[in-house]
């Protein structure tokens, strides 16, 4: 196995990359695509199954109407034409995770076709990604290979979980994406990110790459600069994050360039991305002659969609991710870098909701990209799984502005919220974290500190006002931090001038 690569810049001098993506989006319908089994992620294996999910003989599929609605809305968001009539087809192959030995998919009659998606890179460059089609299909089950490396080769046994078998998917297929040059990795990442934001905004998917509810297969080929004929492509699978999309494309460009420059040829094959090593390895050979023996699905009747229905659903499609980002960036007044932090963290929604709940954009950004992201990283979980809501963050900020708590105390309050102790106000009450605003209590502490450090008092009185810091520290310590340092300082100076 050759793992030689060519430096990226050199590769781009010699070759032009052409990319294509197949993005699978799992829909968050209550039940599966063709069965009444619950569509739930993470349940006990083989509990969300019906006779249909197991491919028992005599069972028949029935189309999930909600899945069709979601697919049409996604098709519209992709700028696609929605078919007035479309059919399902059977795609045949034998594999233990495929209960019927065929997948019900769409072949020559996808529900949505011919669209485009606008994306915008960090640098502000805009690309139009041409969409060939978006079609409905069902997911397969999940295999776990025991023994060996965890892959099927060398495994001693494999276990199948059919909970995922039949989960509704929309597969979005792009046309070849040309002319990106050295920006190919960023374009790849931004495209998948835009699709993720799009399905999130539509509310049709959990949109979690880490859980596989968005999966990306990246096709890439190189051709010598100036050539028009497409090179042989590879299809990289197992890409589980936005960052990996970018890295995988970059790696494949470097790998293919090294082979081509050495006079070799590219194998048309699937390649598996390895997050840890940052490399791809050969999967299975894939030719255009793969024969899935497609046939129209005779157990289902065509899906008919009236123009009125399309118009009605078009009303429910939110603004595109690019337009929304442009609008929010302007409304929030963030710098490029600040806004990028929010976008890359997948935090646009929560920041927007926090602002809606009354916080300033700057404060909302600070909490979500700062302390909350830090805790999520520390716990190794996604931000959205943490027990804190935009309303909590807005509430926290309101408490700071009202002077009820200080910035430092706010972190303790947030920790309480994250530990499930309730809203910020409830945490403040329960932990008695409200700032001591009773001057007499503060003065008592100040007097005690001043009397124990007479030299400091003298310094202050001689005009060295900065010496007050030592007293402030002592007072804050005595008050367990629950005092407003600014007020303490005022009182110290007042006291010093009186004595």
């Amino acid at each position: 196995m050759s793992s030689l690569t060519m430096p990226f810049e050199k590769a781009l001098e010699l070759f032009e990359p052409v990319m294509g993506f197949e993005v699978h989006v799992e829909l968050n319908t209550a039940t599966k695509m063709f069965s009444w089994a619950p569509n739930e992620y993470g349940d006990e294996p083989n509990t969300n199954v019906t006779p249909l999910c197991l491919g028992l003989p005599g069972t028949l599929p029935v189309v999930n109407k909600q899945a069709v609605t979601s697919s049409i809305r996604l098709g519209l968001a992709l700028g696609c034409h929605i078919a007035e009539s479309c059919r399902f087809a059977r795609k045949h192959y034998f594999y233990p995770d495929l209960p019927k030995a065929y997948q019900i998919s769409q072949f020559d009659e996808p529900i949505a076709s011919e669209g485009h998606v606008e994306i915008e890179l960090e640098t502000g460059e805009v690309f139009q990604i041409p969409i060939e089609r978006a079609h409905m299909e069902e997911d397969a089950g999940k295999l776990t290979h025991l023994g060996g490396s965890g892959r099927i080769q060398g495994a001693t046994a494999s276990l199948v979980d059919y909970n995922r078998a039949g989960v509704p998917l929309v597969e979005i297929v792009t046309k070849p994406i040309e002319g990106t040059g050295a920006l190919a990795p960023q374009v790849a990442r931004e495209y998948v990110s835009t699709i993720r934001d799009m399905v999130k905004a539509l509310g049709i998917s959990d949109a979690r790459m880490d859980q596989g509810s968005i999966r990306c297969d990246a096709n890439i080929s190189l051709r010598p600069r100036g050539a028009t004929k497409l090179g042989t492509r590879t299809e990289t699978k197992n890409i589980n994050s936005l960052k990996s999309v970018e890295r995988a494309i970059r790696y494949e460009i470097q790998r293919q360039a090294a082979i081509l420059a050495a006079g070799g040829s590219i194998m048309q094959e699937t390649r598996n991305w390895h997050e840890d090593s940052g490399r791809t390895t050969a999967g299975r050979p894939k030719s255009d002659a793969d024969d899935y023996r497609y046939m129209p699905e005779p157990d289902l009747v065509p899906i008919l969609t009236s123009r009125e229905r399309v118009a009605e659903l078009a009303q429910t499609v939110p603004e595109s991710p690019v337009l929304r980002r442009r609008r929010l960036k302007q409304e929030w007044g963030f710098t490029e870098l600040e806004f990028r932090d929010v976008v890359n963290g997948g935090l646009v929604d929560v920041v927007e909701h926090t602002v809606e709940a009354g916080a300033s954009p700057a404060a909302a950004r600070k909490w979500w990209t700062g302390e909350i992201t830090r805790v999520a990283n520390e716990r190794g979980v996604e931000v959205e799984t943490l027990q804190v809501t935009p309303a909590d963050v807005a509430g926290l900020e309101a408490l700071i502005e009202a002077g009820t708590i200080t910035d430092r105390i706010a972190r303790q309050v947030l920790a309480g919220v994250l530990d499930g102790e309730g809203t910020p106000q409830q945490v403040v009450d329960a932990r008695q974290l409200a700032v001591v605003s009773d001057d007499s209590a503060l003065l008592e502490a100040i007097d005690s500190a001043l009397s124990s450090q007479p030299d400091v008092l003298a310094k202050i009185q001689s005009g060295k006002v900065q010496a007050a810091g030592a007293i402030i520290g002592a007072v804050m310590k005595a008050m367990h931090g629950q005092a407003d340092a600014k007020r303490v300082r005022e009182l110290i100076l007042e006291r010093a001038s009186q004595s």
Partner: protein
Amino acid sequence: MSEDLIRLTAAELADHLASGEVSSVEATQASLDRIHAVDGEVHAFLHVADKAALATAAEVDRRRAAGEELPSLAGVPIAVKDVMTTKDMPTTSGSKILEGWVPPYDATVVEHLRNHDMVLLGKTNMDEFAMGSSTEYSAYGPTHNPWDLDRIPGGSGGGSAAAVAAFEAPLATGSDTGGSIRFPAHVTGTVGVKPTYGQVSRWGAIALASSLDQMGPVARTVLDTALLHDVIKGHDPKDSTSINREWPSFADAVRQADLSGVRVGVIRQLTGEGFQAGVRARFNEAVTLLTKAGADVVEVDCPHIGSAVAAYYLILPAEASSNLARFDGVRYGRRVMPETGPETVENMMAATREAGFGPEVKRRIILGTYALSAGYYDQFYGQAQKVRTLIQRDFDAAFSQVDVLVSPTGPTTAFKLGAKVNDPLAMYLNDVATIPANLAGIPGMSVPMGRADEDGLPVGLQVLAPAMHDERLYTVAAVVERELTAAWGKPLLGFAPELKEASK
């Protein structure tokens, strides 16, 4: 009493049950006794559920005695073709690959039978996965024709037809993909109906060819067939191809049958050449009878019917190869580990399918796989679908002139076991008259029209009607049955030889 009970029609038995003259336990026991006495030779059944049947019967008797109002066929015994899933009985579809499999759910047809408090006697034999016209391709051995035990009972539903013809059950269910209900009825002197596609749910029917399969009733009389048809028809949300509409009572169509003014078309392409002389003779008499009974009979052309068998043997194997792909040994049914080579999942699947499927099933899977292959699809499957459309148009045109069409149901009487088993083409041609209805989705029926002079074996008249008009089948068949039974002095089955009963 037992001997008389088994010869009652379902309608008569239902009346006796309702009046309390006979109990369901008595009727069920009579059927079970008959099965145990003759089925060793007939082999209509793959599974007999004595205990469960008697328990159901006793429960029906108890409820009737308690004064409950019960459905009209409550307590009447019935045999179920093994193509339909039953959660308390093994379901094999005649294949070794499903040997011993007990499904966790009932077919919708079976659910209807249970909801009507009918007594399920057991499961009937069939060609493996309903592929065949003689029941010789059953992995569990052939069924024998009660008229002559050396002859085939037709197929694929030879078990259901023979069970009814041998008085083992008054009623049975069937499935008809290219004639699997009608051809057995033709060669056993019984009645069978393939309903309009979409009228009876396919949920729980182990699919052969999804776009052609239709479940239907099997019985000894036209009225009994209608009564059962009325029980199993109707919309099922679990079957997307199921038609959602109200259907008329077919039993009423039988009771009110009157042929005056009914326009009957004789399909020119389904008479003459290729049909046995005795079949032709009885058919011509039947046509005369229809005229006498007041029908206007004309000849009509269905020019593309000659291509039906060829189109069918592309569409059916294509769909079957797809439907049967799921039998891979991974989740249920038989699993066979490879004798040589590594024990990989692929090798296990191959070994399972090699051991589990019989030769006819393998033949059709190979045919279908080939027909669906990239580069051949348009040439075979696509072309066959075009022929299918042409045949549908032929029927549309014909039904613009006439109300029903008639033909002989099959080209010959029952042939000897083994006569065609190694000649697939000859076997496929048995269905030449029945296949067109499946391609067009229209309803068809076979009703006895006498016995061929050359061998004394029964032959059937096929009646076809436009989609959604199954009631017309019953109108025509009821008159034919009434007139012929009157002429013969007894039902056709009265001419069948007595079966030797094994000592009880």
